[in-house]
């Protein structure tokens, strides 16, 4: 079954997303900040990374930049998650190589699962 790396600094959201993804049958690994995310991405080799944008230390955009620059992870599928809905951020995410960009307040948990399934199927 596919492995998903969940990068989210909020403990409750991390808990909820993991439970949901696990219920859908995915293998889940988590990271609570950008540095951990990069380490886990290389070590665990997930098929999909759910990446939060607003994080301490380094932001989701920076993580994505580095992921795409690293040979091991440049093709990993990435869905960016953010609380912000500025159009400029959407374009930024897409241009840096995100496969999808979702705004947390506008999507439900089920939507995220559906999107993950769709992206993995590409």
């Amino acid at each position, binding site marked *: 079954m596919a492995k998903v790396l969940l990068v989210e600094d*909020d403990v*409750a*959201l991390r*808990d*909820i*997303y993991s*439970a*949901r993804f*696990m*219920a*859908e049958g995915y293998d889940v690994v988590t990271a609570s900040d950008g540095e951990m995310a990069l380490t886990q991405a290389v070590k665990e080799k997930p098929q999909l990374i759910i990446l939060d944008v607003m994080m301490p230390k380094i932001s989701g955009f920076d993580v994505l930049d580095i992921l795409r620059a690293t040979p091991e992870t440049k093709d990993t599928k990435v869905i960016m998650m953010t*609380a912000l809905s*500025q*159009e400029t951020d959407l374009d930024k995410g897409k241009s840096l190589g995100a496969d999808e960009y979702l705004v*947390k*307040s506008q999507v*439900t*948990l*089920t939507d995220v699962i559906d999107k993950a399934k769709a992206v993995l199927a590409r």
Partner: protein
Amino acid sequence: MLLISRENENRVTIATGVISAGFIGIYGILAVFTHSDIVFYEGMRFAVGFAVLSLLYALIFNSFRNRYEELAVGTLFLINSLLPIVLIDYLGGANSLFITLLFPLVVIGFVLGFWWGAIFDLIVAGYLIISVFYLGVGIPAAATGFASVLAISLLFYYIGAKYRDALEEKNDLESSNLQFSANQNKEEALLAGIADGVYVVDMDRNMTMFNGAAEGITGWKANEAIGLKCWTVMNLKNETDISVCQKDCPALNVWNTGENILRDDTCFNRKKGNKKVQISSSYSPIKDKNGKLTGAICVFRDITSRKEVERLRNEFVSTASHELRTPITAMEGYMELIENAKICKIDDKAREYVTKARGTALGMSNLVKNLLTVTKIEEGKIQTNVTKFSIHDLATEVIEAMGPSAKNRNLYLKITESTSSTVRGEKAVGRSLNVVADKEQVREVLYNLVENGLKFTLEGGVTISIAYEKDFATVCIADTGTGIPADGQKHIFEKFYRYDNTATREVGGTGLGLFITRSIVEMFGGSIWLESQVDKGTKFFFTIPRSLD
């Protein structure tokens, strides 16, 4: 009493003549009483002398004073100096008491004028008369003494008069100035006393009046500001920092409409220090008594601190709402997991309660979302992306999206086909006409109004219809619901207003939806209103600007 005007001086000289004549008379009487020829003739000599002198005096005074004033005065001075010399000699030389009296008389006559001099004169005369009868001084001496004293005082009065004239003119001017400035000062005192800034501009927008409070608020001194163009002193900018003076000048607006204008959206920079000052201002036209416009008056006050408080309050609501979002999202997330049969095994009772809890959490989530929207509206920070689009097509999209929700409540949701309308003389099919606005914002407005319609309708449904005018399209969302009574209609667009009766209390909602809807409509240049009848239904109307092609 101190001053005698020019015309009175004539009377004075006449009086001198009269007094001389009087002397002759008195002398005559005295001569009769003393049965003395010597007295008579001596006295006569002096009296005549005095009379001649006085007449000379009067002549010179009146005829020459305008052209040969200095000369006349000099001559008289000379003549009048001789008399005291004679008198002093006659009355005892250097020891004469007369000298001591002469000096103060001169001073008094010069400084205080004729009347005071005359009074002193009389005192001296009284002394002399006493000296005649009690001290044995000769009558002629006494008479001459009296006469010359009078003459001297007159002379010095005259010299002093020039000085006093100047003084009088100055006093007159000062007192008339005082009167004038007392009146002006009353007005100025009023204006200076007002705590609000006041300024007046003329029809060319030159500053013509600028009160003390205006000086304090703007940093401009009145004498600097007056005469300059209004926009040099009060360079007003609106909330987006664009100058209003050319395109949205309140004075010009006031002259165009003829009515009072209130504004609290303008600000300017202080002259010194460039600090930004936000003001609340009231503009009124000034008309003359024929009703013709002569200028405009502005009364304004500094509301920077009030605006700052509002901004801080808004920031607090925004921060609090953001802080609320995360725990609410977590709560909703966990509840969704509980409800998910793949993850948790729960009995039916638990499922029922969790479903209700989740509904409440969803309501909270909507409230926080709306609060954040409201704070963004208050800050003016809503981003708009204005495009041209078909309102009919957008309405159809909304109906499709909300169809299931209506079906769940057994209500219909439809759009009436717009009949073709005549626009600019051409028949146009309604659905192809475009409007200009932010498409997503209009979608939100439609969504809010349809949702409201469905919420408050128990039977029937919601119908959208669109009509086109020359400059705008009017969208109507009509429901067959409970309706809103008149007193509720007045407040319906206010924040958190929910008309309180049993039907609405169960319906839920945040009370912010219509406030946000109205803010959005006004932002894209439209207006919104409603018609409603209790138990019959409600119709909400809003307008959107049409595109030009």
